[in-house]
């Protein structure tokens, strides 16, 4: 009986390892949402910002350019609607066109956050996007999803599955 239980446990453990390995290999195609905000678009930094992503091994899988209206911006940032900075954020995000992208690659969410640097540009590490391209805490050049759950929601907010390239 003990032997049987032991074998069952071994099978179960083996199975778990296989499942985990698949999850890990699935991560090589992790996706995150990136937005180049109105101040960085206006300063013509689109190419330079995209080049940072590509040099870090992230691939662009979708891109579009649009000017958000007030309702779209409020919906996108709905989770912040009680925060004191919300009205300023919405006003800024609707002030001009933005570039919205899906970035794809190993650890895309975390890698993008590292490249962006701290939300407050005065605290962002040297060589990060915000240290180099942000003007202030509000006009901070880029947005990036903060978790893979947010990434999924944010990508679906802007792109149909058919609009995302297979890289």
């Amino acid at each position, binding site marked *: 009986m003990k032997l049987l239980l032991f074998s069952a446990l071994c099978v179960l453990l083996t199975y778990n390892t296989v499942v985990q390995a698949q999850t890990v290999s699935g991560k090589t195609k992790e996706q995150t949402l990136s937005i180049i905000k109105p101040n960085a678009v*206006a300063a013509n930094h689109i190419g330079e910002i*995209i080049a940072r992503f*590509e*040099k870090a091994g992230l691939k*662009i899988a979708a891109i579009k*350019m649009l000017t958000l209206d007030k309702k779209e911006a409020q919906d996108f940032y709905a989770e912040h609607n009680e925060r004191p900075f919300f009205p300023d954020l919405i006003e800024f995000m609707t002030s*001009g066109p933005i570039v919205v992208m899906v970035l794809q690659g190993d650890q895309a969410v975390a890698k993008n956050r590292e490249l962006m640097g701290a939300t407050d540009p005065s605290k962002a590490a040297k060589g990060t996007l915000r240290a180099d391209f942000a003007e202030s805490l509000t006009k901070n050049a880029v947005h990036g999803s903060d978790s893979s759950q947010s990434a999924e929601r944010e990508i679906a907010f802007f792109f149909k599955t058919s609009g995302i390239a297979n*890289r």
Partner: protein
Amino acid sequence: MSKERTLSIIKPDAIGKNHIGGILSRFEEAGLKIVAAKMIHLSKDQAEGFYAVHKERPFFKDLVSFMITGPVLITVLEGANALQKNRDIMGATDPKKAAPGTIRADFAQSIDENAVHGSDSLENANIEIAYFFKPNEIVNRTR
């Protein structure tokens, strides 16, 4: 000079080598503004339709097969003299003849896989822009 628009395509070879940012920077540094962008993996029909003017040319079949090997990034560029400026930045169609510092000299490998497309006349620019973008997909760049 009033604002002029032209169509630019970053072709599958340059996308595959992750040169999107590098190429878009060249446009922006030259004072061209990006006013529309999309990434598509063209179907054979879309590629043939886009290059319909070249239908009778010997290179047509190879061009279409190349253009559907992977996704492309299509942009509308806007600015004074945008059409000619884009052509200057791209360099000669054959990368071997392209001047140093042009996109084709720096990013293209052959006359077939030559990294970028740019409209060759204002008339074609209008046709090509309309082929890929609805008017509401092009933003108004006031700054």
